[in-house]
């Protein structure tokens, strides 16, 4: 049997770049996933563009659409790069990439800039880099790397994965950035489950996380303003209570709920929502963008977007489930979890199901680093699912 065709990869880029770049197999490419992602992205662009108009009249919250487009242009090459990156290279350099992300997050307290009482950004002059966004992908990669050969069969098998997540979470919490820390929890638990952790153990961990969160609140391990957000959330779930507290700590939640409720079934129309006109809803292009969409597109339009997003996530999971390479499958699964965590936390916060925290909606919200990581993640997911590399690990032969 000739094996030369196995040695020579017709899709590789040549002896140098070919080590880490390879064209996807376009026949295997998940065009439908890309299409949905593009639709979601286009919708996001549409709403951001609408928000950037007439801002001079209200004088509030100037939305820079041109700046957002520039960031898109920076992120697209990263998407393409991620599309072409070889799974093998990724696997071989997962530690390096994780180390790089961890280094950046560890440097933030020293070289980061402070804004609004939080130090989260590294000023690169032309770009404000938010390492916590990078860390999410870094954690996905390193967990996939570590769990590639770890079935989590014993307690000792859990230590390294949890430690690898715990360390950056500590730095993230010190910034403070509770929202980002919150997204890492479902990503981690989901990947552990995908790696073979028993469901019961995952449930216990979830309950443990809830208990930990409850204790943190009850014994004031969290910052004062974070506890206040939880208090506000608990006391403003219902409409009447929220309206009563609208001038106080529940201001943001009130504005978001008002915008959403105003949308009704068919929405107010693009740019016609009170959130666009009055501009009193904070962060309406990032943390509250769903409220704007639900207001202006209504339940029908906004619901369609949410369903499209859910479908996008599901299709990523479906695509991952078909992958025989464990590492790649875990990476793609992790990316699916990344989008799912962001979607549901963002929706939960805006709809009052979760306490207020700042978290953008990937592919829709503005935010340079978030956009960069979202497109990179999609590129990785689509690329990995369409690359084919032979592996002979156990999972190649397993269906779980």
């Amino acid at each position, binding site marked *: 049997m000739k094996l030369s065709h196995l040695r020579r990869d017709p899709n590789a880029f040549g002896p140098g770049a070919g080590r880490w770049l390879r064209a996807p197999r376009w026949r295997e490419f998940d065009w439908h996933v890309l299409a949905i992602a593009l639709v979601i992205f286009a919708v996001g662009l549409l709403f951001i563009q609408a928000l950037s108009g007439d801002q001079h009249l209200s004088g509030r919250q100037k939305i820079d659409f041109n700046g957002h487009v520039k960031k898109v242009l920076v992120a697209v090459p990263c998407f393409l790069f991620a599309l072409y990156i070889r799974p093998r290279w990724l696997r071989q350099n997962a530690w390096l990439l994780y180390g790089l992300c961890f280094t950046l997050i560890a440097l933030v307290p020293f070289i980061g800039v402070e804004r609004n009482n939080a130090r989260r950004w590294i000023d690169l002059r032309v770009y404000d880099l938010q390492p916590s966004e990078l860390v999410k992908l870094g954690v996905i990669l390193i967990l996939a790397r570590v769990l590639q050969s770890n079935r989590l069969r014993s307690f000792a098998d859990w230590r390294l994965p949890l430690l690898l997540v715990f360390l950056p979470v500590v730095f993230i919490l010190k910034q403070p950035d509770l929202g980002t820390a919150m997204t890492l929890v479902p990503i981690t638990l*989901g990947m552990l489950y995908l790696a073979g952790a028993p469901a019961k153990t995952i449930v216990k961990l979830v309950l443990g996380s809830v208990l930990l969160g409850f204790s943190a609140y009850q014994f004031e391990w969290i910052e004062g303003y974070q506890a206040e957000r939880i208090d506000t959330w608990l006391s403003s779930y219902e409409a009447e209570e929220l309206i009563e507290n609208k001038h106080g700590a529940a201001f943001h939640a009130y504005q978001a709920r008002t915008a959403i409720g105003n949308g009704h079934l068919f929405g107010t129309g693009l740019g016609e929502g009170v959130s666009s*006109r009055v501009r009193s809803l904070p962060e309406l292009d990032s943390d509250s963008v769903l409220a704007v969409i*639900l207001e202006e597109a209504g339940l029908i339009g906004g619901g369609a977007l*949410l369903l499209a997003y859910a479908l996008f996530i599901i299709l990523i999971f479906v695509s991952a*489930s078909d992958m025989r390479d464990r590492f790649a499958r875990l990476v793609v699964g992790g990316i699916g979890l990344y989008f799912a965590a962001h979607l549901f936390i963002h929706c939960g916060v805006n709809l009052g199901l979760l306490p207020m925290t700042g978290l953008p909606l990937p592919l829709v919200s503005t935010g340079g680093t978030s956009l960069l990581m979202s497109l990179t993640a999609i590129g990785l997911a689509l690329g990995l699912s369409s690359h084919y590399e032979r592996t002979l690990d156990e999972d190649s032969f397993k269906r779980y």
Partner: protein
Amino acid sequence: MIGRRFGPLIVLVGLGAALVLIRAARIQVTEHETWAREAANLERSSRRLPYHRGKILARGGEVLVEDEERYLVSFEWRAFRRENPIGQVALASSAWTGAAVDLLSDPDQLAERAIELLELSPADLAVLAGTDRARAGDVAFYLRRLTGLSERADGRLRQLIAEREETRSVLSLAEIACNEVRSELRGEDAIREHVRARCWASLYDLDQLELSLGRERGALLEELARRGREVEDGVASRMFRRAAGVPAGRLEPRALAAWDLSWLQRALRWSDERLRQWHAATRRGWQEYMLTRIAPSAALEARLSAEETTIDALLWMLAPSIATSEGSQRAALLPWGEALAGATPPALFDGAPLSSAKGTLPSFLALSKNDQEGAWSPTQDLFLHGGEALELGGWGPLWDAVGLSDWEPPASAYEAFNRWERESSMEDRRLAQWLLVYWAREWERGWLMHQALDPGAPLLGLTEDRVEAALDDQDYFLVEQGRRVRALERSPSYEVVYLLSRYPERFKGFQVETQTQRTSNEGALSEDDPLWRVIGDARRTNLKEILVHRGGFEELRSLRQQALRSENDEFELRQLVESLPRYDELHGADGVERLMDEDLTGRNGYLEYESLAELVRRGGAPVLDWRPEHGSDVELTIDLDLQRAASETINFPEPTGDTRFQDEAWFSSPTGAICLLNPAGEVLAAASAPRLGGRSPIPYRDGQGAFAYERTLRRYTALPVGSVFKPFAALWCLEQGHLSEDEGLACVHRERRGARFPGYRSVDCHSSRGHGRLNLTAALRVSCNAYFAQLGDRLGTGAALVECAHTFGFDMPTGVNAHAEGQAIPEDFESPSFRRADSFTDVELQRGANGLMVLEGTPLQVARAYAGLATGTLPELSFVRDGVAEGAPLPISADHLAVVQGALKEVARTGSAKLLKGLDVAVKTGSADYAKMTPEVAAQLKFPAGSEPARRKHTWVAGWTPADDPELIFVVYLHDVGVTSSHSAVFVARQLLSRPEVRAHLERGGS
């Protein structure tokens, strides 16, 4: 098939999506109306459009009073401290040193101090941040503002200052920022000069503004600094209230001293003395607020309450103010509530049940309702369980200041009930103030008592979490208090308005606003003319009106907030907008303003619109636009030329030049009045002397010359009309048959006080020889007292004299307040003695017929009577055109009228007013005894020897012109004169009738 454990995750995603959609559906569908309303409220703005109150015009249309847009300069502390270099340097210094810094201790050093501060580096700020992050943040903020860089450069500088390890100065970093953004400012020196220039410019601008405002040097800055301190006081009060749960003003200094307020001092950088000053000011302010606002409001509400008509209503209304401390339950419960061992905190009322621990509770927490067993009332409880003498403590000065030092509190419940029954608003207010102080003192004593018993009680102390909460809110309070705008100068000069409008960037914190004010045209009518008292004043909506309309205000607020309204709602909204008074709306307080309030009042409008962005984008009309309906103008009957003539005549009478009888003192400092009417009863002029801010009164007289009163309708002393009443006594007697035209009555000498004087019984005549036998015409011509004293006898009874007086309008309203409820234009029309007319003696009747003693009247009453005498119809007087009611014909025959009219013509030709000969008048003089002649006053007079006047008098001249075809009725009244009318009032009357304005009026035929 989906394997490898992705199935459950997909299911979870599906469930998550479903949950999100269900929640979204609930908010967007089920709760849509609620949120749509909130959204509309976010977007919509509305305001009531005030109407302009109608103008008050003089006859002929000249404006006397109107609404005018006036400018107002206001000041906002926050904008000043953030944007003005003076504020920036002071606040930066204060934040850096941790101590309060004067706004501008040394103007010459401002620029250098600014440069010195800009030499600080982020590393220095980081060291400060190690101990106090807030102060470091403040310093960084003010230093950035001080540089005055462009927005882009400022943004970059902000990033550079955020780098804690940076050791270069802020000035150097500013240079870097400017270079990076390619600002016009390049180099540290340029920035330094730029900062210096800003500082000097701010000093110059402030000086210019101070000069334009007419303030003394340095006064404006002092005022601004005072505003800054007021803002700090406000912040401290809010923070204290947050931490303590009670307003600082409620606590006595002793109670406050028991608490550690170092956290407050640190937060605000206050010394101990400053803290003490704050508390003293806050305490005083709170006490004043309670006594001058809460107590009167409670008294008024208690009166308006329909449920309870005894003083118990006042207790129910007032107690929550002490018990709940404006809503704070903590203040109500403490220190009697949870601090009492085993006692459950009493429920707040109303409806507080009787408590078994009632004896230990203060009465404002344990008010009882009438219960079946004891039938107590709260008032009875108060005196039974408390009622000890009020010990004022720290309330003493304010107690005196509000006028309670001369007032005795009730000594028993019975007395309290009775006082409330009097329904006197002043007494109600005092009772409320007394009760409030009583309970406040009870509260304070209780606090001190429990503080002494249990100083560590957490409920009486400041807990850490509450202090933290207060410190967390400090920034919010700073913004909230700092943004409050205060009036700095009302009606500023044009120069000030120009400066602030043209150069707003140079005068940050100062704003020009417009405000509608009711203004008087002092060019038309002199500002010191007492006629303004007749025109009256306007006032703002008062507390009673607000309380009465409280339900309407609530309804209006609710409808305004409703984004989706039905037609009925819109109709009701319009009704309320038009009918409810605005808080700043003007209403007539007195005078014509009040009399014609309905005409002068317009209807408010209403404007409701969406955001400015929406208006511009859609180019559309507002949602609701109801234009206001302005009030109608009111034209007075006052002829300004005649008014001026009358006012100048009575205020600046020329000396008589009489060589024999003179009261020069009066002529140098006159007191009196002149009024002019037309026969229809329209008041053409009503002038009084002295004017506002007039001359010093004549010594040794009655002192009325010190008071600039309105004297044509008002009477401040006894005011007998004297002989000007005689024609009416004569007419009445003729008509009643007590007298015939040709009947002669004697004026001869008789025995009196051991001597012989001409006169009749108790009435002496002014002629030393007596007039002999006179008929009516002759008697009127010479004004014989004896003749009319006999008429007094013929009247027979007091009732007859009263009926005679009433027929001609004496002791009756003149009609100026027709159609008004109560007296809009103040008028003293009663003759007080007439109340006992049934018991008039003969002496009183004899003197009364002479217009003396029991018969009093105001100049306008006299004028009205003479108008009736001239025309046969007694008119209703009016100050308002188109407001003259029809007069009533006198029940006097034309023949009798003609007789008396003829006699009055003779008075001018050959009688007591012959000085008016040639002026075509019918007139009567009068000299009414007023006060005893003293040697001091006699020394002021000139009179022939042997003719010493026995008494001081009011002298009168009343009549009409032309004699045969009356067009003008005139009355001249001189107050407290030493000589008779012939030597005083007649001269003044001649001067009046000779005025060109009067001649011109007559030449126009009286129109």
